[in-house]
């Protein structure tokens, strides 16, 4: 278990402040320059924190140099030693060669590092990091040099491998897709602060800030005010009233709420509504659309707000949709997510 206890570090644009426990596989995600790399550097000992301590398995490693910390580290472009063979690279890392079988790289051992494919390099880098039996594994954007074409498969493979490990893993990425696949937990970092850290499903379902919501795919985020509280909450927004099943807010709260584009339904004329769409139907016009494979990304303009809707290809054609067509869209009550209370200022 890794504990970052009241860590503070002044950086160029902001102060990094972290006070968290890390167990299992944590995907640390945030935009470029949010402090992700500095966080890894503090854990690994390249950067000294101004305050606070790094505790690994109960051992205070803050004053230790990198070589004494027992950390496995996978670098962005793997940083394999070009002057050593694959075997030498791994043995440089440590004596535990069980990793060779685990990662199925026995056939690569006598190769030169320069002869490896990107997927092979990744596995060698992982083997090298694990050969020293580290107490924690850190990965710094290990997919960033992998091309789009391979990334999905390699992310799944890596995820499966990481789940067999018995040590904590901190996986830094700027891709929410990777974070969702890899992380048992997701920690969102912004301007040096962890603004939300929780189980992956929780972060995905219940983002606690507009930033996290937009980052995790809530493309439709609006401001509103809670006007009624019963079984559902009624939120007043630019288009009238919308209902949400959440209940942790109270009347009068100014809130930010959102709905994912895949949870917006396009409603056919004359079709009876399922119960949880009641009161949540709005009319508008399609103002633009983009086809991304089997999904149409359709932007609907209501009276004032715009709503992004993802519609599968077959539904798109069945409903005779196209640009400039008038449509009704509905938000399921249980998918309208109140994200945060806006502090009045």
């Amino acid at each position, binding site marked *: 278990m890794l504990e970052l206890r009241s860590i503070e570090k002044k950086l160029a644009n902001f102060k990094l402040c972290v006070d968290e426990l890390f167990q299992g596989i944590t995907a640390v995600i945030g935009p470029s320059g949010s402090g992700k790399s500095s966080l890894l550097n503090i854990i690994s000992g390249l950067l000294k924190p101004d305050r606070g301590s790094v505790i690994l398995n109960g051992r205070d490693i803050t004053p230790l140099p990198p*070589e*004494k910390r027992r950390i496995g*580290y996978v670098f962005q472009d793997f*940083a394999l*030693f070009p002057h050593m063979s694959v075997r030498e690279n791994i043995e440089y890392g440590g004596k535990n060669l069980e990793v060779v079988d685990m990662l199925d790289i026995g056939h690569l051992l006598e190769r030169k590092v320069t002869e490896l494919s990107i997927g092979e390099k990744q596995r060698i880098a992982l083997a090298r990091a694990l050969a020293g039996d580290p107490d924690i594994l850190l990965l710094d954007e290990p997919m960033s040099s992998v091309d789009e074409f391979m990334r999905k498969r390699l992310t799944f493979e890596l995820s499966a491998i990481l789940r067999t490990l018995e040590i904590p893993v901190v996986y830094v990425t700027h891709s929410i897709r990777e974070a969702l696949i890899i992380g048992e937990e997701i920690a969102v970092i912004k301007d040096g602060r962890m603004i939300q850290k929780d189980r992956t499903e929780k972060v995905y379902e219940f983002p606690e800030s507009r930033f996290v919501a937009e980052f995790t795919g809530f493309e439709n985020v609006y401001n509103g005010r809670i006007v009624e509280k019963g079984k559902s909450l009624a939120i007043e927004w630019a288009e009238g009233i919308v209902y949400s099943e959440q209940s942790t807010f109270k009347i009068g709260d100014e809130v930010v709420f959102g709905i994912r584009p895949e949870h917006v339904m396009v409603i056919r004329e004359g079709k009876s509504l399922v119960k949880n769409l009641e009161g949540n139907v709005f009319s508008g016009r399609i103002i633009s659309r983009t086809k991304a494979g089997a999904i149409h990304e359709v932007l609907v303009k209501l009276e004032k707000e715009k709503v992004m809707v993802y519609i599968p290809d077959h539904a798109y054609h069945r409903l005779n949709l196209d640009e400039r067509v008038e449509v009704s869209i509905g938000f399921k009550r249980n998918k309208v997510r109140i994200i945060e209370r806006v502090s009045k200022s």
Partner: protein
Amino acid sequence: MRLIYSLSALLLLYLSLLGLSAVLKLSIPSILSLNLKPVVTSLLTAAITTLLASIFGIPLAYYLSNLREPYKTVVEGVIITPIILPPIASGLLLLSILSPSGFLGAVTDALGFRLTMNFAGIILAQLAVASPFLILSAKAGFDSIDRRLEYASRLMGKSELKTFLRVSIPLAKKSIVAGIMMCYVRSFGEFGATFMLAYHPRTLPIELYMSFLSGGVEKASSIAVIFWIIALIFVFLIRKGGDRFA
């Protein structure tokens, strides 16, 4: 293009005159009748100088490569100055300090050993003139290393020293070897500073100068030819070394 070729050809022709002249002066009997002592002195002192330059210069190059500004500019300046100074001027400046009347020479003199007019003087002269070449070349090698490789090594439990020996040096090997060769060649041919600090025991360049003074071109040319042959050997070695470390 024709102009470029013509210009190139002219200078190349001029440079090859060195070889032509050496071949014309090549006379086996006069080479065989040469005094071997200066040859041995030069080969040996250049080797010791290069060894010392490596032992102290490679760490210095690494230190310099990691140094922050403005210190870097200052240290680099100290190292580059002897390359820019005419060796004879360097020699004179050193002499004023290292001779028994200079402050450092006075100290060692009191301790019972001298820094001029002996092997130590030759080596100190060569070191001043030739070691900067090794340092700068090795530094260029260290500069080109991806620093994350060193950091990776540290994270794999290796100390700074071990990382230096097993990662930094191997990765900068090509530049270090080139630097060592340059240092040796430069030491072997060193004249100006050596002339100031220790014209005795005679190194080969001093011997050449002395022969020229006493017997003119005729007498000295066989030594120049020896230099030319040794240069040929070095050209061959550097090519071979270059291929090997490429």
